[in-house]
């Protein structure tokens, strides 16, 4: 892929240490617009840490993060979101006591900059409600709109997690093990949704399921002990002996 235009998301020399413990070492990554990029690596490699660094949950010790060419390294989390980064969490972070509709409503209201309004009733924001419902319908969650989130099965909760991220109309979407914890009978729903995502969004997906990775990704980065081991196309990664060694001789399913 040629980099004729600015990457949607670029990470340069990203480092993070907690005292003597280095959790991110000289990480470099570039997501072009429309990227389908997977991040793989053994447990504890620092994949979620990287997502936390990108979204602003953690501050890097060194390095830069650029969104559409603009340096966002010193911006707090909420500001980065407003510039177009959305994420899902490895373990659902939902508003469990609220309805599904309210969950997505909040994301839409923030995006449309009406969430600060003190005086008009929330119900008067018809545009927000419409867009929230549209988002639910896109993920076939509309029938659950009035259900309290904690009463939904985990698989559907995971869909709500994704709905919230999509409701932010992100330019860059970070999915942290989207199918994790979802029973296999329901995981196809999630994978279908991911497959059908807007081609303009740059997507970075952390996954352990190699099936999903090879089906979805155009490029793969392998992260080990906080550093990038290698990056390449699925074929290159599959053929790389070091990657196999890292996974301790695990066979990639459907090799």
């Amino acid at each position, binding site marked *: 892929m040629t980099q004729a235009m600015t990457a949607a998301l670029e990470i340069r020399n990203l480092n993070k240490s907690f005292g003597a413990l280095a959790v991110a070492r000289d990480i470099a990554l570039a997501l072009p617009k429309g990227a389908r990029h997977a991040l793989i690596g053994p447990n504890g490699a620092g994949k979620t840490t990287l997502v936390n660094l990108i*979204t602003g*949950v953690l501050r890097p010790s060194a390095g830069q993060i650029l969104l559409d060419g603009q340096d966002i390294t010193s911006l707090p*989390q*909420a*500001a980065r*979101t*407003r510039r177009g980064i*959305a*994420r899902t*969490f490895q373990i659902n*972070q*939902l*508003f*469990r*006591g*609220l*309805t599904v*509709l*309210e969950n997505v*409503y*909040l*994301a839409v*209201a*923030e*995006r449309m900059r*009406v*969430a*600060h*309004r*003190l*005086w*008009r*009733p*929330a*119900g*008067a*924001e*018809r*545009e*927000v*409600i*419409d867009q929230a*419902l549209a988002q639910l*319908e896109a993920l076939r969650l*509309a*029938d659950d*709109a*009035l*259900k*309290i989130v904690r009463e939904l099965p985990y698989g559907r909760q995971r869909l709500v997690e994704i709905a*919230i991220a999509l409701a*932010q109309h992100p330019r860059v979407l970070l999915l942290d093990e989207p199918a994790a914890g979802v029973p296999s009978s329901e995981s196809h729903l999630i994978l279908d949704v991911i497959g059908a995502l807007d081609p303009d969004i740059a997507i970075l997906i952390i996954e352990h399921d190699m099936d999903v990775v090879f089906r979805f990704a155009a490029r793969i980065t392998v992260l080990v002990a906080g550093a990038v081991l290698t990056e390449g196309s699925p074929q290159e990664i599959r053929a790389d002996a070091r990657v196999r060694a890292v996974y301790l001789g695990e066979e990639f399913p459907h090799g």
Partner: protein
Amino acid sequence: MAASDAIAAAVPASDARARAIAFLATRHRLRLWEALPWLIAVAAFFIFPDRMLFGSQVLVMVLFALSLDLILGFAGIVSLGHAAFFGVGAYTAALIMLHWNWQEPVSGLLAAAAAAAVAGAASGWLLLRYRGLTLLVLTLATTIMLQELGNLLRDFTGGYDGLPGLTYTPLLGRFDYDLFGHVYYLYVLAVLFVLFFVVRQIVHSPFGQTLAGIRENVARMHAVGSPVHARLLTVYTISAAIAGVAGALFTQTNTYVTLGVFDFDNSAGVMVMLILGGAGRLYGAFVGAVIYMVLQDNLSKASPQYWQFAVGLMLVLTVLFARRGLLGLIEDVARSLLPGRRP
């Protein structure tokens, strides 16, 4: 007509969608039963005409508990020092009267609200970055420090002896205060009415929704781009202002204030009232404050120990058996009696 109305009308098969819209779109509408607390308050005026001084104090506490509901029930901020703002409001109302001869009560309320809002904004800006034990201790320490400050400046504030003998001009220029508190009661009721609907409006706004989001999952709110600190600061300031008005009303209806307004018992008491009635429900403040004040009035006459024991017992029982307060219990009972009701 909004797109949602058109859709709801034209596509009846999409029942779920229509119901969803209806749920959010009409939640803020006034229900019939909401007139009840106000009717009861007015009825009390006629049924207990000789208890109106006490009645005024009950309404003052309802307002105080309402202000706490905003931050505790809706935003989920656990503070052990809400009396700080009540106290700032109470002393503002007293001091402007004593030192500047500011005897007009309603504008005194505004001054108290402003002073308490400033205190709320300043302490909130500093403290709302923290949670858990740290926040509990910081809010507690802030209130104690204000009390100590008041004691230090006792020439100005009257110290623990307080400031007695405050006088105010007749309400709206016409209604003079009688010994039985009739004017006081209606005055406080009117203020409570206005501020209640302000709070109600805020709670049902998009801003109110974000408070619920912050309460439910702060991490998620950050991740959807919400400026959490700014939102919390806003609600904390508003809550402080309302608590300040309650304090000012306290001073005006007692014509007396002491540093006891900053006591931990005041912060704890208002919390008990709110939890007893049910936090996050607006009307919980009414139920809890009335029960608390009536019990206090009866029990502490018998013996202060009985009252303190009762408060402790109420807390323990509420937490163990009625976590969402009396209104929560009533709701649970109603739900089990009326199956098939929507959430």
